[in-house]
């Protein structure tokens, strides 16, 4: 039973990690590429870390929860990096498939 749970968590994690990177390689402009790594990769690695916590907690050496710390940290930092990256991209006026909201960018970043 436990084996099935662990296998499920590990496989979901690995598949989502892969899909995140696939998005990074496949999509056509920077702003859409940003979506893959921030969401899919974060959840994928989160699920792998939970699998690790379950694995080490059930080996009879007491509960192991420090993986939760990395998960928490990733879930807090991934959006921050994404926000900063898109801010930098807007600052550099990278071309985008969607129309750039020119006046908002002008007013907010200035030069």
């Amino acid at each position, binding site marked *: 039973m436990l084996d099935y749970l*662990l296998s499920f968590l590990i496989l979901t994690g690995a598949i989502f990690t892969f899909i*995140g990177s696939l998005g990074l390689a496949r999509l056509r402009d920077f702003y859409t*590429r940003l979506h893959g790594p921030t969401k899919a990769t974060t959840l994928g690695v989160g699920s792998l870390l939970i699998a*690790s916590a379950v694995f080490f907690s059930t080996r009879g050496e007491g509960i192991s929860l420090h993986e939760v710390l990395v998960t928490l940290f990733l879930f807090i930092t991934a959006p921050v990096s994404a926000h900063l990256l898109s801010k930098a991209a807007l600052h550099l006026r990278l071309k985008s498939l969607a129309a750039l909201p020119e006046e908002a960018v002008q007013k907010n970043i200035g030069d």
Partner: protein
Amino acid sequence: MLNVVIPIAFALVVAAAALNFWRLLRGPSAPDRILALDTLYVNAIALLVLLGIHLGSALYFEAALLIALMGFVGTVALCKYLLRGDIIE
């Protein structure tokens, strides 16, 4: 069961890392490369965690935590550089 799943997971994560590497080399813009590098950090964490489960050793956790911290700081520093042309003002 785990013996079958873990190699598959390794293969998927390594393929993901290869895709990131391709994006890192190809660009075309600086933010693209930074994003690829950031994702590569996260994939390194995934590989370390898998290795930890595979070997049944919790030793690799500290390395994963350090990569998470340093990767985030590195990404923020690089973005700051793009935004301001300077890291420390």
